[in-house]
């Protein structure tokens, strides 16, 4: 046991130290940043945070943008994936296997390579600089995984429940709404959170679709802050931006960790 706990500590240190270094830096004055390990008179400050929060546009704006995109992507994906997952769960053995294999293959694809064409589409259709429009490609990218996870969940439900529902007079949409989806809600929650995390994390498409500063999402905002000056040392401000950007995600991970882990686990097992 002792040996295990030792390794656990190493694991936790490895996982959290880089982040904690950012936290440490974010509260440091310029002086202490240049001397992180030695004694400095004026160590702590909130200036970095003030700088980032009062910039134009204010930092919370980026968090809001990411949240808007995240929620709309999740909603759209679940809306489209649910009927598709139902259709797959009811397919014959061979059809189902082929579809699942195809979906798996598509999900392996590094979506970064799609940026150019998607950029063109955005320009042609004029949907660049639109947060809600961003949820369309995000939906498509999350769709394979979502359909795979949800169709497994539907298949796990006892067959006679849906049959009893049909006899009770429920049509397809009523069955989905009252029986299938409530009973699959753990899987739906897991899938939703994974989609949400993906949208928050996505960079290349958000970068190329949105150029208006007011509308950029969090990763793009951070990249801008990072690219703004490669040679000076405003690392305090960088750090506080990093920390602020991470807070919502930390909450999500800690709060929803069960769902995230079960979603990924189920995906691994069934995939």
């Amino acid at each position, binding site marked *: 046991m002792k040996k295990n706990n030792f390794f656990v500590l190493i694991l936790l240190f*490895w996982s959290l130290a880089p982040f904690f270094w950012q936290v440490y830096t974010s509260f440091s004055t310029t002086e202490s940043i240049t001397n992180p390990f030695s004694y400095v008179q004026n160590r702590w400050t909130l200036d970095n945070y003030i700088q980032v929060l009062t910039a134009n546009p204010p930092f919370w704006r980026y968090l809001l943008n990411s949240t808007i995109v995240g929620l709309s992507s999740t909603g759209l994906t679940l809306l489209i994936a649910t009927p598709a997952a139902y259709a797959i769960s009811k397919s014959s053995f061979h059809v189902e296997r082929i579809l699942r294999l195809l979906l798996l293959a598509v999900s392996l694809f590094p979506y970064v390579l799609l940026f*150019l064409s998607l950029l063109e589409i955005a320009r042609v259709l004029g949907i660049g600089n639109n947060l809600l429009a961003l949820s369309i490609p995000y939906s498509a990218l999350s769709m394979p995984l979502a*359909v795979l996870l949800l169709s497994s969940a539907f298949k796990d439900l006892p067959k006679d429940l849906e049959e009893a529902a049909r006899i009770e007079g429920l049509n397809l949409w009523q069955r989905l709404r009252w029986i299938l989806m409530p009973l699959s809600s753990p899987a739906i929650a897991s899938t939703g959170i994974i989609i949400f995390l993906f949208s928050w994390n996505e960079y290349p498409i958000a970068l190329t679709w949105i150029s208006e500063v007011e509308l950029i999402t969090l990763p793009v905002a951070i*990249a801008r802050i990072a690219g703004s000056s490669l040679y000076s040392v405003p690392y305090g401000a*960088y750090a506080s931006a*990093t920390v602020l950007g991470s807070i919502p995600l930390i909450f999500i991970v800690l709060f929803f960790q069960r769902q995230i882990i079960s979603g990924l686990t189920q995906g691994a097992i069934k995939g």
Partner: protein
Amino acid sequence: MTLLFLPAGLLIIIVFGIPIVRYTWLSFHASSVLTKLEVLPNNGANWIRILGDDRFWQDAYQTVRFASISVTIEICLAILIALLLDQKINNRGLVRALSLLPWALPTTIMALGWRWIFNTPYGPIEKIFATLGLGPLNILSNPDTAWLATIIADVWKTTPFIALILLAGLQTIPNELYEAFRLEGGGKLHAFQQITLPMLKPYLIISILFRTAQAFGVFDLIQVMTGGGPASSTESLGLYAYLNALRFLDFGYSATIILLTFIILIIFTLLVWLLASKANSIRKAITS
């Protein structure tokens, strides 16, 4: 019934399929936007150019190097982490959640963080080496070492994800298998080879394939952490394609880069898959 599948299927086909078609067309037709995107077939000029493009092939080498080393380290570490998390430890749920943090944070955020960590002369790495009396490492400004830093950052971010998948795999192995093996007198290391690894195989293969494909497209990390430098030593194919499109405004060439990258990716993935499937037989040959 097929109607239900239509929106999802259509969306996937459009978003994944159209680009491929478009890229092919672009690579054979377009020239720089500056010359008003001429819709003239250019007789594969882009393709001739790319084959002789040193920067492309250098980037290809760097990307493949990045992907292979990253994924190898990640898989090995992930196995260890998964084995650890499979044990009885205090607050296992909390430990799992916390170790998942690197994966949950957006790449760009921690790319910036890592840039700071490796910063010369103020970053903690440099400071630690300085107190040990070793000279400034200049990791990020040295073309020979910068790419190593990117690998470290990538390993940090994605290992938890793989560990989780492997942990799921570990938990499907029934305890009785280990108990029976122990009764037969098998040692722990042996058990690992004979039971754990074979049963983890599908999970390992999936993880390797998935991560390799993703690593091939690495973009976020490189752009924010090093910008592709120093001297393009960390530049990836994804980044090169992006630069051609948005900085040099040559959509046609960018499309060509993407297509060739895709082709290389498929070949590489197939190789990895063959290797992974053969790994078993190689190992058996060695241990017998």
